[in-house]
């Protein structure tokens, strides 16, 4: 696995860790406040968590699909990885303000 792919892999894993924390905070607040606002935040966290978990599985753990994508479309693989890194930056900022 190239260094770039490892970086992307770590970014996806970090996204999952951060989203678990955010979903926990928002989910707990939803059980407390029962408001539309907190429900929206909690739902956002859970859906994005599912998205990252699916991506991690499809691109890195599913043996057939990850090998096929890496072999057939390496440029697309790298481009999608870059989007994952941008997502990490975005989620990082969200975690920073939510942890307050």
């Amino acid at each position, binding site marked *: 696995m190239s260094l770039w792919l490892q970086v992307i892999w770590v970014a996806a894993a970090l996204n999952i860790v951060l989203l678990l924390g955010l979903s926990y*905070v928002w989910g707990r*607040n939803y059980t407390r406040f029962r408001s539309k606002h907190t429900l929206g935040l909690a739902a956002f966290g859970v859906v994005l968590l599912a998205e990252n978990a699916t991506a991690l599985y499809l691109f890195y753990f599913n043996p057939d699909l990850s090998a096929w994508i890496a072999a057939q479309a390496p440029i697309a693989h790298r481009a999608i990885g870059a989007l994952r890194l941008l997502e990490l930056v975005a989620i990082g900022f969200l975690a920073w303000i939510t942890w307050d």
Partner: protein
Amino acid sequence: MDGVLWYVLTGTRGGENRVRIIKALEERPRNANKLAEALDLDYTTVRHHLDVLCDNDVLRKQGGDYGAIYLPTDRARQHWDTVEQIMEKVE
């Protein structure tokens, strides 16, 4: 302002304690020390929440540095129905 209130009080980790702080200050403005005692919270935690609430123009500080008392801003009072709606959920 409504968005700020929802976010600062229900979207963050410390939201619930911030609601308790606002509730206590609405009953009676007081300083950070008294607030920490009344709510059984750590003094530095209370100071942190007070700073966040002041930054977001929910509370304002009155008087000198150490003994300064905190109270809701006019802006927060204009949106007090939202604050009450949120406070209802916290005992």
